[in-house]
């Protein structure tokens, strides 16, 4: 499952590299009118990432056996399925909601708290949905690209959606707070470690590459993989 995730990241970045050369400068200013704000924040995040997050992710990957890393990824993926249930319901995707609900039930019980992803081989695919995708599904535009301090690439719609997403995040309900924060930290490091391989494909202006990859990936997710291409992109 992790290899599929990595492959999807690589494919998205590869598609970005092909497409980005053809993207006109005026389109950049259209999706990124706040570049004057975004670039300094991006630089700040890059410094933070370079000195803190990336070394932590590399260290985590170095000392953690693959099986444990997979288990940790599965564990947080199972928690994320809880939010997917809510957002699938909000998008009136009953079958996906039921499948995600079934995933949580079986992964939490038979899958030993979510460490084992037994649901996928059982025929229950995951349908990752968040509130930003729900707003997008109902026609809310993404708005300008936005780089959030600490949180990284986003846009206005997704940035606002992080609040309702946090309300259905089971980690937020964990007590005591110390354990909750440890889980938050582990999730951040695990997520960052998953991106280490994908980011090796980035070259040129990292800011532009990450921005376009992010915006295209979000459009891809909102449309459940059905993306319309403009003729001038080919």
């Amino acid at each position: 499952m992790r290899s599929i995730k990595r492959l999807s990241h690589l494919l998205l970045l590869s598609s970005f590299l092909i497409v980005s050369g053809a993207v006109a400068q005026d389109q950049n200013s259209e999706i990124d009118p706040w570049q004057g704000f975004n670039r300094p924040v991006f630089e700040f995040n890059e410094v933070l990432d370079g000195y803190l997050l990336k070394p932590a992710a590399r260290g985590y990957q170095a000392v953690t056996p693959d099986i444990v890393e997979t288990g940790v990824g599965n564990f947080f993926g199972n928690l994320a399925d809880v939010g997917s249930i809510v957002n699938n319901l909000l998008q009136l995707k009953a079958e996906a909601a039921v499948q995600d609900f079934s995933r949580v039930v079986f992964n939490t019980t038979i899958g030993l708290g979510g460490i084992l992803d037994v649901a996928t081989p059982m025929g229950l695919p995951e349908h990752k949905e968040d509130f930003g995708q729900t707003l997008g599904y109902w026609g809310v535009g993404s708005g300008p690209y936005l780089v959030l301090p600490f949180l990284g690439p986003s846009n206005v719609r997704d940035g606002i959606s992080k609040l309702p997403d946090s309300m259905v995040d089971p980690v937020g309900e964990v007590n005591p707070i110390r354990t909750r924060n440890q889980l938050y930290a582990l999730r951040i490091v695990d997520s960052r470690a998953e991106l280490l391989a994908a980011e090796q494909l980035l070259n040129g202006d990292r800011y532009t590459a990450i921005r376009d990859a992010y915006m295209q990936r979000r459009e891809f997710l909102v449309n459940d993989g059905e993306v319309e291409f403009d003729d001038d992109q080919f």
Partner: protein
Amino acid sequence: MKKSIIALAVAGALTAPMVAQADATVYGSLRVQIADADGAALDIQDNTSRIGIKATSELFSGATAIAHFETYANTESGSFGTPGKGRLAYVGATGSYGTALVGRQWLPAYLWTVGKTDIMAAASTETTHSYGTGGRQGNAAAYISPKMGGLQIAAAVVARDAAGVDAGGDAGTQVDASHLAATYSMGGFGVAVSTLQYNGTVDENINSLGVNYSADNLYVGFSVEDDEVNAKGADSVMILAGSYAMGNTKVLGSITDFGDSAADVDGGKRYVAEVQQKLGKQAFVFANYIEASNKAEDASKAVDVFAVGYNVNF
């Protein structure tokens, strides 16, 4: 050469009785669940596993003779059956005139009415119905008509030489009962009524009604049962149950209203949710949650239970 003759003779000796044998099928369903019930320790338990043999053979008249035996196959002890108790053991015949069965069998009192709402995989959800008096009955003879434009009727008698006392305090030396039931189905709609009139050691009645509707992947069933044998003077138990299948995933739910007891104590309600995931044609896993209302818990009608189980049929 000699070997060939011997082999032919052996083959002939083996095939001759085979020709006369009935067409028999061994089948079964092994079911294990892990249950966490309120007030009890976590338990890996059997979930009413069973194993059986079904056989049919053609009669000279053109009708078909039936033999059916089924017993518990306990996955905890590894033993067959429960001492003094099995599930099914009957013989009969079926043809254009209908079906006649004698022996221990499911009565239409269960199959046609309350069975419509008994749709969950977890055995712990079946506590509203008495299988002993209203379900499988030994010493029974039944006639079930063929379908007549969607209508089917059944009549049965139970005659058992057994002393005892029923819930109403009636004592005797015989368990006798007569049973009438009718079911009608048209399209996806079905309705059935049943009355099981005990007369003897047990001197009360069990009356029930079942309604169901199914369309594509949706199923909805409703049953109401007035069991005076086991709960004399109590209200009828009503159950509304439904399921919806999406590919290999099925979600199920039910609400049970236990009604008031004979002493006018509210029996409360029970809510059940279940999800089943097919792993193949003959195997599925399920997760089942029972939420009992406070009144249901106080009346010992139900407790909160979470169970995860695995069924393999063959």
